[in-house]
């Protein structure tokens, strides 16, 4: 596996590819070199059929291998294209382009080269050279034939000349020698030799030839000659480059000279005479060249078919190599583009399936490399973001669960609180309304939740609630204007006739403001004060009864004492009866008048008319009222501060003036000199606030809660109806009144009235 991986990695390495190409080039150069050197290879090796066969088949195997690789590449490409594999079309186009560019010129060269070789070989074989060589060969053979004929004639003459000489008689050898020497000159031969059968007897050589040693004709020639066969031989002579053309003549066995013993006698054999003519060395060289050229030509003719086939194979090999190289280059270039793209496509698909750990492992150093690296970086980022999102999601789920729990808890708390809680959005749609609120308002959730406040509370009584949730109240407030929303906090005390029963509510409206300062809606909290007010009224009536009894009892004592004094004077006939009667009657009348005044006061409080609202000139009203108190108490300053915008107040001016007088009475009375009583009027969020402050002793906290109860007084005199009347007037105007400590001392009564 490691080797395969290494090979796969190297396949994409440019150096490896260049190395392969260089190796291939080296092999081709080597092959060409071997072909060139083939001329120097020994003929025996070249003529070795087995070796040629092996080389031939190696060539064919190489061609088939190249063909196989080429077809395999093309087939693979076709299959990839059929299966619509990404990049296959691009590969096909590139390979087709490369092969198309190469195919036609290569085929042309192949055909032309093949024709050229065939034509050359044909011209070689069929040209006059062949016939010239053949004729030259015939000339050479004719020359040799003529020399052989001359030698044969010389041999026959020499044979005839030595007839009668016993070759086996040593004593006749000198005579033999002399005759041969004489014949050498007469015949013009260069060599003469006499054999007894195959045994050498005597030989002579023309010293002008330069032959250093007698030629050896060979036993086979001698045997044939002894057998009477015509023999010829061409021998390279020793000591010279000339060639000796031998021919023999055979005669009868030598005559028996009787000079040897019977034991030494050999069986009779034919007398053989060899004569030789020397062919000049220049002629020998020319003759050899002609013969060799003729033979080579004949060899070419014989080997025409394999020669053409071998060239055809070579050209085919080169053609296929070029085609393979072009297809391979096309595939290689296409692969360099398609492999990264394919890997990217696969990577995109796998990343799309959620395999964010997948990385594209493709070696690329161009723009595709940048793309691959960017893809891997992007996948890493996606993975990190996904982990972050999953973690955030988990936290969100936990937070949602926590919020749901808290919401359920809050809902349970809201549902179970005694106060009514109503929430609305910016547009006045009621979002929630707890059970206490529904019970207080005598409505069901369907009638309220999800509706606009004005639709849910369309009757005149409940419409007062709707007005408190009116979104128009805050429309002018800019986003983030928390102060404006804070000013929209309000508290009202409403008395509503619900299903024939008066219900009193303390209504608190609070804006819901987001952390960014935007108004989201409002929360209304209803506190049912009906029972509390009833209890307070009961307590007030008790107090009133006590005070009435007290107020009635106070004049009764002088009345009773005056009546008893008059009665005593009358029974004693006291002379002062007249005076006593007059004084007593005066006391009775005075006390009755006081009682009458008290009764009238109570009657007026009880018969307090409903306010008649109209546009009030608050500035004028306050100044007119304050004029009554200026200089009333020395050392106590009376001042006012009226802001513009308060002139749009709709109220009953008489009741408002009365309320102011009651508040100013108490303030002047409570303020010791030096001091100040100040009246401030200002407009705020559709309301007018009137502050009446003094610099007196102030009011204890435990007393503040009872101040507005009827018949409650801290002064020990008066009816205790002053502040109760003020509270009644303010409530009848749908306003409210509160008492606070003034800074640095004294008390502030604040009357808050709706503008309309």
């Amino acid at each position, binding site marked *: 596996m490691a080797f395969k991986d290494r090979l796969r990695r190297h396949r994409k390495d440019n150096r490896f590819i260049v190395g392969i190409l260089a190796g291939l080039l080296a092999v081709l150069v080597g092959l060409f070199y071997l072909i060139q050197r083939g001329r120097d290879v020994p003929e025996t090796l070249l003529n070795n*059929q087995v070796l040629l*066969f092996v080389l031939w088949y190696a060539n064919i195997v190489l061609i088939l291998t190249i063909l196989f690789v080429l077809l395999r590449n093309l087939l693979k490409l076709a299959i990839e294209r059929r299966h619509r594999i990404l990049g296959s079309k691009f590969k096909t186009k590139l390979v087709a382009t490369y092969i198309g560019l190469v195919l036609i010129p290569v085929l042309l060269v192949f055909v032309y080269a093949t024709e050229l070789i065939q034509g050359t070989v044909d011209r070689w074989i069929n040209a006059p050279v062949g016939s010239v060589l053949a004729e030259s060969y015939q000339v050479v053979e004719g020359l040799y034939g003529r020399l052989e004929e001359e030698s044969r004639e010389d041999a026959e003459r020499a044979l005839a000349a030595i007839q009668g000489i016993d070759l086996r008689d040593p004593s006749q050898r000198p005579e033999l020698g002399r005759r041969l020497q004489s014949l050498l000159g007469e015949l013009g031969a260069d060599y003469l030799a006499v054999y007894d059968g195959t045994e050498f007897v005597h030989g002579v050589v023309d010293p002008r030839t330069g032959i250093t040693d007698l030629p050896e004709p060979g036993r086979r020639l001698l045997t044939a000659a002894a057998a009477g066969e015509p023999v010829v031989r061409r021998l390279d002579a020793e000591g010279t480059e000339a060639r000796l053309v031998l021919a023999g003549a055979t005669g009868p066995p030598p005559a028996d000279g009787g000079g040897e013993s019977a034991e030494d006698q050999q069986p009779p054999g034919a007398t053989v005479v060899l004569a030789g003519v020397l062919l000049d060395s220049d002629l020998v060289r020319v003759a050899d060249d002609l013969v060799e050229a003729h*033979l080579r030509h004949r*060899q070419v003719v014989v080997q025409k078919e394999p020669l*053409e*086939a071998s060239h055809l194979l070579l050209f085919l090999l080169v053609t296929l190599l070029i085609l393979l190289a072009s297809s391979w280059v096309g595939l290689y270039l296409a692969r360099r583009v398609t492999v990264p793209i394919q890997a990217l496509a696969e990577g995109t698909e796998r990343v799309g399936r959620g395999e964010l750990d997948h990385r594209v492992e493709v070696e690329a150093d161009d723009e595709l490399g940048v793309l691959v690296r960017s893809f891997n970086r992007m996948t890493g980022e996606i993975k990190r973001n996904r982990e972050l999102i999953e973690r955030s999601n988990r936290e969100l789920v936990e937070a949602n669960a926590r919020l749901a729990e808290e919401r359920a808890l809050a809902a349970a708390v809201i549902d179970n609180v005694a106060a009514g809680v109503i929430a609305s959005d910016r547009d006045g749609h009621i979002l929630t309304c707890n059970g206490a609120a529904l019970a207080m308002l005598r409505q069901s959730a369907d009638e309220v939740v999800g509706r606009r406040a004005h639709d849910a509370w369309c009757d005149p009584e409940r419409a007062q609630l709707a007005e408190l949730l009116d979104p128009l109240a805050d429309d002018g407030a800019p986003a983030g204007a928390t102060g404006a929303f804070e000013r929209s906090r309000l508290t009202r005390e409403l008395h509503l006739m619900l299903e024939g029963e008066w219900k009193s509510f303390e209504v608190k409206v609070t804006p819901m403001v987001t952390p960014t300062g935007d108004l989201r809606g409002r929360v209304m909290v209803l506190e049912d004060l009906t029972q509390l007010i009833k209890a307070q009224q009961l307590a007030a009536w008790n107090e009133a009864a006590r005070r009435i009894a007290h107020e009635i009892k106070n004049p009764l004592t002088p009345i009773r004492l005056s009546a008893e004094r008059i009665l005593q004077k009358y029974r004693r006939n006291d002379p002062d009866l007249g005076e006593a009667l007059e004084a007593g009657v005066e006391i009775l009348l005075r006390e009755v008048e006081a009682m009458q005044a008290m009764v009238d006061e109570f009657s007026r409080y009880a018969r307090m008319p409903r306010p008649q609202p109209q546009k009030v000139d608050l500035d004028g009203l306050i100044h007119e009222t304050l004029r009554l108190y200026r200089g009333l108490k020395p050392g106590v300053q009376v001042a006012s501060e009226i802001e513009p915008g308060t002139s749009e107040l709709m109220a009953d001016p008489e009741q408002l003036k009365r309320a102011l007088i009651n508040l100013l009475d108490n303030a002047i009375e409570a303020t010791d000199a030096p001091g100040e009583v100040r009246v401030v009027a200002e407009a705020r969020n559709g309301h007018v606030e009137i502050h009446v402050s003094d610099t007196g002793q102030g009011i204890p906290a435990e007393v503040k809660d009872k101040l507005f109860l009827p018949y409650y007084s801290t002064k020990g005199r008066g009816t205790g109806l002053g502040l109760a009347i003020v509270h009644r007037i303010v409530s009848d105007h749908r306003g409210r009144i509160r008492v606070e400590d003034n800074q640095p001392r004294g008390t502030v009564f604040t009357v808050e009235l709706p503008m309309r």
Partner: protein
Amino acid sequence: MRLTRVTSLSIALAIALATAVPSRADDPQIHGLKVQLDGRRVMVDFVLTDAFDDDLVERVGSGLPTSIVYELELLRDRKRWFDRPLQRSSVQVVAMFDALAREYLVNYKLDGKLVESRMARDLDELREAMTEFDKIPAFTLEPLRRRSRLLVKVRALLGSRTLFSFIPTRVNTEWRESRKFVPPDDLMPPPSP
């Protein structure tokens, strides 16, 4: 792209028919194959006919070494199955023209070793030397493990030719079988009791 089985078989058959070379009457053939035993030696006689054609004569005459290789096989006869080869040998006859002497040198190699060399003075002598064989000591018998009959097969390899102008193929005769013969008793295992 997948070829069906029928298509593949059709293509294979077409190739086989295209490359098959039917034998003709004038094609080279081995004749007169005879086997004689000389002790343990197997002597073979045979004649190759119709091989000494003009092409071969031209080749020899051009001075190129020209060879004919005879492959011989000694087999044990099996009636219901293929004969079992026991030994193989080859006789290579190489002829070369000596333009100076105008003779043909003929060398004989038995299993690659030179065993004989002779001169042929003309084409008839050369044809005889290259195609007619008399008592070639082709094999030496070894003791057999079972009693059986033997036979000798011979064929001649005549060089090569090209198919489709560039695929070299060997030219050879068909195998010729000798008559079956029985080896000497001393090479046979003793008969079973």
